[in-house]
């Protein structure tokens, strides 16, 4: 499989993980290790930056695992930018998953504030990965603003509904010059495989693994599904046909 790059970092694994909702930090660590993921996102609001021994961070200290702090909790660009700077200082990484969802009910990303924040953060030298709606025009605008990737949602966050936005995801993947990471809504390994078959560069999964009966086993299943989907994409998956290709009723006359 072809490794892929975001910014200056090369990834072997195309599966990114979230760290919330697990029944214990131990369970989270086991699942992350089993998933083979090299990039895990962690909410700044969950970490205690005052201490050297934060319970979550202690479980994420592994040589292959890179941290992707996220700004969950920010309601506008200003708050997100402020949080990003704090995260950079405290966690010594300029990588950032930009989440601005002012609506606590469905956690729908605010396109306008996200664009503003991406522009400002890119100028400040951040590797920005913004969580957004599957909006192809917004993706191009984010590219212009200096984003390092785009993270369109497959369906509402935490919903496990799969790729409800598939038609728009296909357009985004077709048009994008930056990596496309499908975030939110991926409920089953088959959804992840499908995203990879479409040509997404990576997927980010959290709820589906965290609340599974056996998170570690589910993490393995996702790892394998992502690999299978990506291999299928690289092998140039056969296209579906809506009807059988009959003998040539319309052009047969040419050969009569």
């Amino acid at each position: 499989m072809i490794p892929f790059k975001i910014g200056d970092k090369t990834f072997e694994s195309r599966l990114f993980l979230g760290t919330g909702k697990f029944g214990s930090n131990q369970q989270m660590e086991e699942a992350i290790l089993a998933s083979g993921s090299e990039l895990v996102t962690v909410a700044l609001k969950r970490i205690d930056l005052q201490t050297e021994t934060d319970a979550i961070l202690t479980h994420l200290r592994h040589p292959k695992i890179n941290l992707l702090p996220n700004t969950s909790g920010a309601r506008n660009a200003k708050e997100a930018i402020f949080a990003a700077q704090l995260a950079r200082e405290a966690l010594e990484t300029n990588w950032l998953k930009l989440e601005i969802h002012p609506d606590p009910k469905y956690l729908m990303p605010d396109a306008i504030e996200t664009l503003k924040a991406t522009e400002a953060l890119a100028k400040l030298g951040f590797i920005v990965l913004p969580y957004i709606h599957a909006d192809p025009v917004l993706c191009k605008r984010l590219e212009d603003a200096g984003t390092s990737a785009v993270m369109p949602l497959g369906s509402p966050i935490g919903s496990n509904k799969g790729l409800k936005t598939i038609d728009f995801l296909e357009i985004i993947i077709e048009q994008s010059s930056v990596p496309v990471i499908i975030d939110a809504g991926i409920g089953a390994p088959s959804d992840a495989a499908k995203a990879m078959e479409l040509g997404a560069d990576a997927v980010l999964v959290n709820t589906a693994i965290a609340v599974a009966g056996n998170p570690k086993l589910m993490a393995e299943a996702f790892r394998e599904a992502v690999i299978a989907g990506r291999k299928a994409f690289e092998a140039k998956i056969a296209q579906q046909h809506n009807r059988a290709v009959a003998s040539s009723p319309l052009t047969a006359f040419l050969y009569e």
Partner: protein
Amino acid sequence: MKTFKSVFDNYDWETIKTKIYSTTSSQVVIALAKTKRNLDDFLALISPAGQPYLEQMAQIAHELTKKRFGKTIQMYAPLYLSNECQNICTYCGFSLDNKIKRKTLTGNEITLEIEVLKKAGFDHVLLVTGEANHTVNIDYFLKAITQIKNDFSTISMEVQPLSIEEYEQLHDAGIYSILVYQETYHRDVYKQYHTKGKKSNFDFRLETPDRVGTAGIHKIGLGVLLGLEDWRTDSFFNALHLDYLQKTYWQTKYSVSFPRLRPAEGVIEPNFIMDDTDLTQLICAYRLWNEDLEISLSTRENQKFRDNIIPIGITSMSAGSKTNPGGYVVDPQSLEQFEISDERSASEIAKVISSRGYESVWKDWDKIYSLKV
């Protein structure tokens, strides 16, 4: 300003009560079968006809809560700052006519109290007071908040209703959430329980969450004091209130609590008894109706109930609580608001949570999002 009152005034207590008590089991079955449930469904699920479906409701509540909140329980502790109160509320230990010495914590005493909470691991503190506007007012609150804000990521408050301007000041000072319970939505019954003081003004209290929402506070907590009136009817109105607020102040988070009337110094017995089955039904109904609502359970409830309700729908728990100012160390014998039932320490509760396969979450907010930027 449009407030909840304009919605509330369209409803009549008796009509709703009749609707709840005449719900049929087929209405419950329809509500259960849906994936998106509205207030009518909530009404059916809290009805007596809903009770035979409790296990089914609990299963769905468990799945929905797990999906939205994961296997986590947030931890918080109350810090009672004062038991001074100018109100007469016949069910409350702090009631003005309860002739017992009152106490308001000084700065030094607050320092001693929070040391105990920090040592127990708490990062979310809920500040509670009675209503004594001359001494325990916005100036007192701001001073207390400034004093403790570096010690806690999340500071919530459950104090007397304030003005929009005062809530804005609290928001700027770093207050994350405001809890204000209507106690009962029955206007006449409310008057009987709240006979004197500012709290006797039903409408002023009813419109308080609107003022909190307008001020941009991150989270609003509602509740009714279960035992004052028919819990089903009161809970419908509480849900109606939440529904209105969620649609109006859409950037705000909401939580609900279920204080059941507890024994306290010199107070009345509950007129309406809500047993554990009822409370479980209510928690499930809230979750089935409102997937993202935070549901909090205090130490008013007993050990057995608290341990078993963990996987059913609640999202936050207090532990090791004292309901009197100075209760943790300064003045353990001062007048308490009510007797707690679950007396286990925070670490004991954390162990219970863990043994149920859940993670206790101590920090889920960062001050940086509350700072004025």
